[in-house]
């Protein structure tokens, strides 16, 4: 099932558009672990994301970033509150394929070529062969992998694999992209380049993005808004508005720009203002 073929073009701040891309109201998530014990991963989280808006989630490990993303994607169910995606329940939105998703590990199927990996969601939803390959062609070009279309994942570098995963997440032209640390496994140089490409791709497709990251510069460079979270239980402790101009014009130079440094400092302070996370002492 392919949804709405072409997006409404969206500029950086389309806050006022008709229905919100995401609307999370007082969502909470409690995990039942071993007999009796429970983990409150999220507590009373509310967040609205406008169509075309780029929102990053940042916070120390275990603060519930992934959990929040997974609730939106209906990969887990909220234990309280309400989550709407384009006005539908998360479940309905998943069934209607309203979003594309990418994870920290690219999660490509190793036995499928680049092209076949990108075609996977289309294939699952019964899109015909010619249509599928035409769309894959477009996407491969978009992520700059034209020469690698018939390579297999193990023949690609980490960065290239992530680009395939991003192309795959865009296959059905979703109006919403959910990304959980998609660049977490990349080295910093590659990472910076991927960020720039993501910014470009997002402005071109006009999709709203929820982007989980650990990196302050990354969050600042990419986002319209940075949502800062704190752990135990996971809450939103601050939202930093960033204004670096439209995505299409963001470039490397920006990183040495004072607005960028200001954004970094603002997010850093929001983060550190939150009760200091115990330094990785939790047992795994």
């Amino acid at each position, binding site marked *: 099932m392919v949804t709405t073929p072409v997006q409404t073009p969206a500029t950086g701040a389309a806050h006022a558009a008709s229905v919100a891309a995401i609307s999370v109201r007082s969502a909470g998530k409690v995990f039942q672990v071993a007999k009796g014990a429970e983990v409150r991963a999220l507590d009373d989280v509310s967040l609205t994301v406008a169509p075309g808006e780029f929102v990053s989630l940042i916070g120390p490990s275990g603060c519930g970033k992934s959990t929040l993303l997974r609730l939106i994607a209906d990969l887990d169910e909220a234990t309280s509150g309400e989550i709407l995606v384009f006005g539908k329940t998360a479940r309905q939105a*998943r069934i209607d394929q309203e979003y594309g998703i990418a*994870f920290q590990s690219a999660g490509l*199927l190793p036995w499928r070529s680049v092209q076949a990996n990108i075609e996977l969601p289309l*294939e699952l939803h019964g899109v015909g062969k010619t249509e599928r390959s035409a769309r894959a062609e477009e996407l491969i070009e978009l992520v700059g992998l034209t020469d690698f279309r018939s390579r*297999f994942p193990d023949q690609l570098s980490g960065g290239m694999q992530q680009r395939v995963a991003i192309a795959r997440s865009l296959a059905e032209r979703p109006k919403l992209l959910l990304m959980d640390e998609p660049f977490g496994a990349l080295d910093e140089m590659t990472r910076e380049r991927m960020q720039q490409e993501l910014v470009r791709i997002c402005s071109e497709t006009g999709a709203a993005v929820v982007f989980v990251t650990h990196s302050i510069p990354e969050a600042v460079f990419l986002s319209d808004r940075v949502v800062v979270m704190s752990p135990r239980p996971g809450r939103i402790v601050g939202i930093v508005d960033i204004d670096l101009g439209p995505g299409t014009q963001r470039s490397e130079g920006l990183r040495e720009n004072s607005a960028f440094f200001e954004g970094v400092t603002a997010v850093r302070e929001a983060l550190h203002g939150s009760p200091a996370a115990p330094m990785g002492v939790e047992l795994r």
Partner: protein
Amino acid sequence: MRGPGVAERGNGHPEPAAGAAAGAGVPAGVSAAAVRGPGRGRALVRSVLPPLVLGVAFLLLWQLVVAVFDIKPYLLPSPTDIAGQVVAVFALLLSSMLATGLNALIGLVVGGVLAVLLALVASRLRVFDRMIVPLVAGLAVVPIVALAPILNTMFGSTSDTPRRVVVMIVVFAPIFINTLRGLRQVRPVHRDLMRAYAASSWQLTRTVTLPGAVPFIFTGLRIASSLAVISAIVAEYFGGLQNGLGSRITSAAANSAYPRAWAYVFGAIILGLVFYGVTLLLERFASRRRS
């Protein structure tokens, strides 16, 4: 050459197709094509020469010992005696290999398919899983000797079926256990992905679970392949058609015609290696495309 994998590795790193390249050693920028070419010939020499030398040395020593100590053939025939018999009974040797090989093949294929199918069911149906896994553990330790006589009466000793059933039973356990492990190996990220695509459980099986289990299936198959031949041979020992290697070996041995018996043993070894080699090739072929 990789050894037949250990069927059950209790720990979590079964990665059956783990590459041999050590860590980050593989250079960037050097195209894979450069690795082939004449380098391959030398690699072949390096992997074939040592076992060949060892084998020839072993045979020579064997021959020498038999000659020097004048060992009677009923105690230990010499390699040349055996080779002489291989030539003498060659036509019969081939037909026996064919007969036993066919039994082993049919048993292997039917048992293998059954094992994969039941593993699929077990991976989907928890109740079935819990009931069958202990049974398979039992099956894995049934000695062939125990089964053959009973199967002979059950299916009739004039048919090849009892032997094929023996092979099926013997190959079932390693393939089933490995396949099931492979099917359970689905990476959470793939599971999440398929859920995000609202994929049906059949789609999950077809596109993710089953292809992901292929290397595991092959690990099981590799172990099963040589077992299939041995068990087909041993099964012949308890009656039935007298056209295979097993009955030829025993009947030669009963007449103390050990050089002839060993000529058939030689056939058995070749057959075992053929089975093993073909599985290895299939595995190579199927896993060409994997990390």
